[in-house]
């Protein structure tokens, strides 16, 4: 026991909770996602646990209300951000000395460091490798999840994620301007073209597209939020394309609860449960596709790590950080565009042995370097320095 008490917001699995316990923390689990509870509930939660002597609060992503409540109560707030850009980081509350903010995307980390946030750190995402390993070991194959190619993901054409489509009036000049960015960004990874939008055009956007922020947000918040909205629009176009093309050519399993009526040939298998189904899908599919949101400039998205940690073969767009930690065609495979994706699919469907070797190598590496327990121990090191 290390005499430290930590309050954990709800996470995907018990992995984070277990990792802190293994490090000797007394762990209290709040049953809610900390970024989804309102201001009042947040304060109540903190006040309750303050009385019980909690030293730390931990959440995935950053809640400005929690940051304030912790700051007021002299509790350390640890936030591990798995979204990029994360608009809440532009709140004034992000600057509190009581925060420890861990960002999975290195480019995003640099942006916030340049804004003068001294309490930000770079830390890639971790996955619950232990849990997935156990699940696969218990049930090596589950027939109904087997497929040649699988894609698990949001198509961004649902209500919550298609905000750009809801913009009902833009001057034509501005519409053309943003469309050029959207269509070009589809073909380009690693550069954020949304950041090229000129000052005049930003003013026009702010005039015609109103985004609600509430108080306490600094300059840059609008641009970050708009970046998310436009990235989601791009993702929508890309993923709809991807589904149509793959569905037309291959034995393709799609897991999404989004509407697929844009192409009547496509049948979705619905939502895939993160814990109960996803590991078997990735392990049972010959090839798993990852296509990263453009707003994630350099970072390794959760999906890519999920796939590999479950023993799945990963076929993904190029991300700088994936290339830094993993070797192309040894641990996973990059595709350059849809044409190249299909060529690689054709190849790897024909070359079972090689494909399995790659999946195995990627899995080993992910379990070694991207486990939640490893990442949490790195967090532990930093907060105790």
């Amino acid at each position, binding site marked *: 026991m290390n005499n430290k008490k930590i309050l954990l917001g709800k996470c995907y699995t018990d992995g984070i909770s277990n990792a802190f316990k293994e490090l000797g923390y007394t762990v209290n689990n709040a049953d809610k996602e900390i970024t989804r509870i309102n201001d009042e509930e947040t304060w109540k939660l903190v006040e309750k646990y303050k009385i019980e002597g909690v030293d730390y609060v931990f959440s995935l992503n950053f809640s400005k209300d929690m940051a304030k409540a912790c700051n007021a109560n002299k509790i350390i707030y640890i936030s591990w951000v798995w979204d990029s850009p994360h608009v809440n980081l532009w709140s004034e509350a992000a600057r509190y000395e009581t925060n420890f903010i861990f960002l999975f995307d290195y480019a995003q980390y640099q942006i916030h460091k340049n804004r003068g946030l001294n309490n930000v750190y770079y830390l890639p995402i971790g996955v619950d490798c232990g849990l997935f390993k156990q699940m696969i070991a218990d049930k090596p194959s589950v027939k109904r999840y087997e497929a040649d190619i699988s894609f698990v993901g949001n198509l961004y054409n649902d209500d919550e994620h298609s905000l750009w489509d809801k913009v009902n009036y833009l001057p034509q000049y501005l519409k053309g301007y943003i469309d*050029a960015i959207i269509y070009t960004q589809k073909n380009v990874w690693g550069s954020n073209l949304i950041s090229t939008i000129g000052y005049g055009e930003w003013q026009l956007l702010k005039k015609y597209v109103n985004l609600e922020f509430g108080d306490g947000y600094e300059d840059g918040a609008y641009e970050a939020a708009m970046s998310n909205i436009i990235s989601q629009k791009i993702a929508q176009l890309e993923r709809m394309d991807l589904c149509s093309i793959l569905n037309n050519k291959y034995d393709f399993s799609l897991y999404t609860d989004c509407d697929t009526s844009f192409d009547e040939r496509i049948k979705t298998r619905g939502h895939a449960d993160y814990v109960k189904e996803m590991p078997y899908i990735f392990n049972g599919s010959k090839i798993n596709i990852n296509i990263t949101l453009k707003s994630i400039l350099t970072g390794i998205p959760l999906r890519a790590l999920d796939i590999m940690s479950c023993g799945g073969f990963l076929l993904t767009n190029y991300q700088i950080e994936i290339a830094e930690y993993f070797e192309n065609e040894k641990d996973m495979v990059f595709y350059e565009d849809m044409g190249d994706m299909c060529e690689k699919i054709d190849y790897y469907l024909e070359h079972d042995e090689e494909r399995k070797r790659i999946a195995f190598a990627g899995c080993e590496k992910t379990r070694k370097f991207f486990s939640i327990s490893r990442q949490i121990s790195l967090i532990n090191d930093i907060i105790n320095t």
Partner: protein
Amino acid sequence: MHILMYNWRAFSNDYLLNNLRELGGNVDVWSDPDILEPTERAIEKLKTKLKNNYDLVVSFNYFRGVATACEQTNIPYAAWTQDAPLWSLYDDTIRSKNNYFFCFDSEQYKHLKEKNIKNVFYLPLGVDVERLEKKTVNITADKRSKYVADISFVGSLYKDTAMFDDIVAKLSEYSKGYLYAICNMQLKVPEIRFSEIEISKEVMRELQRKVSFEGEGYIEVKLKKLFENIVDRKVTAIERNMMVEICRKYQNFKIYTNSSLDEALNKYNQGIVDYYTDMPLVFNQSKININLSARPIHYGIPLRVLDIIASNGFVLTNAQPDLFLYFEEGKSIATFQCIEELEDKIDYYMDHETERINIRNEGKAIVKSIFDYKTQIKTIFECVGI
């Protein structure tokens, strides 16, 4: 070796000629302007000339009239590109088996290779280091004071953007916004190769409807490629203008251009300078020479950069991709990613003289060993097999 060199308005023709001769070539020069069209007569005249036991025909860039004459007389034709895009490369004559293409731009090289042309090679441009060295020794006091500068820029400002401006004037507000965004992205994210920019079907259709594009008459070039070139030139104009605005803040800034400048900027303009006699002195006597590669050249190392370095000048250049095949940033070349970085880089190199000189010297050593004319010409001979 009996060589015919076709000369037409390329920089550095004299250097190529001298070096071919110094390598033992018996070189004749051919300059018939009617080859450009080409007229039947011009082709016949050249064919007659070629009956005199020639081993090779050489030119900068590519002329289909020359290619036709060479094909019909079965003589190899080495075409060494100095420009991009080269509209003449969109002609069917490129498939002649007698053609040997030496492309200075690696993207241009790839495009030709993709067309399954047999003899295509990537070959950066050459520079006559020895001659340039001689010119930059014993410079008279007069010339020194004429050319000494903190910052120099030699080149066109691409002021004639009429093509772009005329087109935009005819388009809808939507298309205008679309095109301005494209120009803006090109300015700020130069590593985007143009082929990665989507021109939506809607904008393309409007372009086809409202604008008549003049290609090179007889050559069919894709609309997108022609349009790409117009946008590239517009972006070059914007960028070079921004460069002038940045450089004018410095004490001793000299620009050598025949482009018209705003009245306030006229005082910086020294007018045009002779390529052979005085340009090397400009490069040599300036602390920093700016190179902003013309945007139509997507990857290739422009001749300007090599000339500057060979004249013992320090060049601060945009980060043209092919440079990094040979030079190392901060060690043998100084580059900037985009125009927004230029000012900081100028300040830095103005303050760090030793580093500037080291980079200059390292760059010179590389140019001397890799880009010397004789090295390049020998490569041409080897590839052609003579």
